[in-house]
C-alpha cells in the first residue's frame, strides 16, 4: 500500500472554500475561507481550533464527504473531488463521533472494513484484524457487540479500523475528545506508536495533546487558517525572546543598567513579598545569553533565585493568535 509518490506533500489545499446555502442571504454560512494548507509526509500535524472553527468540514472536504464551493485540494497527489475513491484507498479516517453497526462485534467491524481493501486470503485478513485489535488493546472485547462499548473503546476501535489498510495518511477528527484522562492517554499512545508508519493529520481542541505529539500545527478560527508552522517555531513564536529572572534584594540599580543596553527592548517587573520578578525582552538572544546574567550579578547585593528563557505554551500562542485575528 505504501507505494508513495516522490512528492513530499501529503495534503495540499489551494484556496479551498466551503459555503453552506450559498446565495441564500439569511441561511448562508461560510464554513471554510480560502484555505491553503500544506501537510508534509511523515509529520504529525495538529489541526487546532475552537468548536465551529471548520476543522471537521475541512476533513470532510478532504475525504469527499462534503463538496467544495471553491478552490481545490490534492491528497497524496490526487484531486480530492475527481479522484476521491483513489484517495480513500490510501488513507484511514477516524470520524469525530465514530458510528458503526451496533449489532456487529469489533472483529466483524474490522473484517468488514478490511474487505474494502483486501479480497483474501481469509487467514491473512483475520491476522490483520487481530493485529489491529492488539494495537488498540481490544482483544478481550473483540467478540462483543459494539452497542456495549464505552466511548473510549469505540474511539480505539475507530483508530483500528482507520489503520486496517496501513494507510499512507491517517486522518483523525478529534481522536481524544470526550475521553477520560486514561482514555486520552491511550489514544495518544497509539498515535505515538503509529507515527513511524504513517503521516497523521488530526484535529483537536485539546492543546496539551497537540504539544505532546505534534510536530506541525495549524490554527483555524471561523473557517480561516490563522497560522501554520512547525510546533517549535510556533512556540518560539514571538519576535523578541523573553528571559525570566527572579531576584531578591534592591534591583533598582541593576534594572537601570540593563535598560540602558541596546539589545534590551523592555523590562517588565513585578514584586511579590521580598522577591522581584523580571521579564526581559531582548532583540539579540545571543548577546543576552552572554551578558544578561553577568550584568545582574555585578550587583553584589542581588541574589538570583531563578533564570531562564520564557517557555510559551501552545495555549498562549493559540489565544494570542485568535485574539489578534479578532482585533483585526
Amino acid at each position: 500500500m505504501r507505494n508513495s509518490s516522490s512528492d513530499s506533500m501529503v495534503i495540499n489545499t489551494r484556496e479551498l472554500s466551503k459555503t453552506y446555502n450559498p446565495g441564500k442571504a439569511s441561511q448562508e454560512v461560510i464554513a471554510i475561507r480560502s484555505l491553503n494548507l500544506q501537510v508534509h509526509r511523515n509529520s504529525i500535524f495538529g489541526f487546532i481550533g475552537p468548536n465551529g472553527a471548520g476543522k471537521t468540514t475541512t476533513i470532510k472536504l478532504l475525504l469527499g464527504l462534503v463538496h467544495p464551493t471553491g478552490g481545490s485540494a490534492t491528497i497524496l497527489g490526487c484531486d480530492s473531488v475527481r479522484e476521491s475513491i483513489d484517495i480513500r484507498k490510501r488513507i484511514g479516517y477516524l470520524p469525530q463521533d465514530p458510528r458503526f453497526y451496533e449489532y456487529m462485534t469489533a472483529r466483524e467491524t474490522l473484517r468488514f472494513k478490511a474487505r474494502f481493501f483486501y479480497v483474501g486470503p481469509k487467514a491473512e485478513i483475520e491476522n490483520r484484524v487481530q493485529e489491529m485489535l492488539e494495537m488498540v488493546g481490544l482483544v478481550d472485547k473483540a467478540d462483543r457487540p459494539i452497542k456495549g462499548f464505552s466511548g473510549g473503546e469505540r474511539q480505539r476501535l475507530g483508530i483500528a479500523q482507520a489503520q486496517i489498510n496501513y494507510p499512507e495518511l491517517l486522518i483523525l477528527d478529534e481522536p481524544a475528545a470526550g475521553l477520560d484522562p486514561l482514555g486520552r492517554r491511550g489514544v495518544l499512545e497509539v498515535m505515538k506508536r503509529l507515527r513511524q508508519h504513517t503521516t497523521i493529520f488530526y484535529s483537536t481542541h485539546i492543546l496539551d495533546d497537540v504539544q505532546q505529539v505534534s510536530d506541525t500545527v495549524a490554527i483555524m478560527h471561523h473557517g480561516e487558517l490563522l497560522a501554520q508552522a512547525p510546533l517549535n517555531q510556533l512556540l518560539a513564536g514571538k519576535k523578541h525572546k523573553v528571559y525570566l529572572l527572579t531576584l531578591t534584594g534592591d534591583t533598582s540599580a541593576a534594572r537601570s543598567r540593563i535598560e540602558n543596553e541596546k539589545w534590551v527592548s523592555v523590562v517588565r517587573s513585578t514584586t511579590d513579598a521580598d522577591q522581584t520578578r523580571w521579564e526581559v525582552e531582548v532583540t539579540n538572544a545571543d548577546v543576552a545569553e552572554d551578558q544578561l546574567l553577568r550584568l545582574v550579578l555585578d550587583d553584589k547585593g542581588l541574589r538570583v533565585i531563578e533564570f531562564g528563557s520564557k517557555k510559551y505554551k501552545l495555549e498562549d500562542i493559540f489565544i494570542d493568535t485568535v485574539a489578534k485575528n479578532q482585533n483585526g
Partner: protein
Amino acid sequence: MAENVQLQLVDEHGWRCGFANVLRLENQRWWATKRWWVQSLIMTILLNGMLAYGIWIVPLFEPVEPNPEFVSGTLDVILIWMSILSVFSTIFITQSAIIGEKQSGVVAWILSGPVSRSAFIIAEFIGNAIGLLSTTVFLQGMFIYLQFSMSEGYFLPIVPILAALLLQSLYLLFYLSLVIMLGTFFSSRVPLLAISFAILIGQPFIDNFAEESAPWLSWALPAKLPELARFAHRWQTLPSHSSIILALALTLGFLVLAIWRFKRDEF
C-alpha cells in the same frame, strides 16, 4: 507493523468500488440474521396458511363440489394477496435502508472508505431485492405450487406460474426502487411512507377513472402487474405490455435518480 505482502488487494474500479463488500453486508443482514426466516414465516402463514385453510381444512367440514376453475380462480386471489403482502413488506423492511443509515451516521463511515456512492445504492437495491423476492415471492410461489399440485394429484405446468411470479417480482422491484429513491431525498421516514402508500393506494383510483376514458393509461399503471399475472398463470396472451414497460422504466429511473441524489448528498 510490517507491510503484509500476502494480502491481495481488491480489484474494483469506478462505480464498482466497494460494491461486493456492501452487497455482502446486505446479504448477511438478510441471511445471517433472523430476518429471512421471520419474513418467510409471516408470509407463509398469511399467504400459504390461507391457501392451506381453503384447500385442506374447509373440505373437512363441508363437502366441496368439483370445480375445474378451482385452481386458476384460487390462484387469482392468492396472487393479488401476494402482491399486497409483498409490497407492504418491501415498504416496511426497506424504509430504513437509506434513511436509517443516514440517521445513524454509519453511511458517512462507509463512504469514508473506498466505496462509490453508486455502488452503495445498487448494492442496497440488489441485496434487498434478493432477500425480498426470495422470501415473499419465490419461496411462497414454490409452496403455492406444491400445495396445488398435491391437492390436484399431479404437477401443474410450472412455466405459467413462473411467468406470473416474474410479474409479481417486477411489481415488488418497482416499489423497492421507489423506497430507495425516496430514502435518498428525505431524512425522515414520514414522507417516504406517505408517498409510497399514496402511490400504492392512488393507483387503483386512477385505474377506476381511466378504465373507461383512457384505457391506455389504465393498462400502463404498475398496479396492473398483479392483474397481468392472472393472464400469465393461465398462459393467456397479455392484454397489454404497457405496465411492464413502464414499471421497468420507472424502476430504472428511480435507481438513476437515487444515485444522482445520493452523489450530491453531504455527510
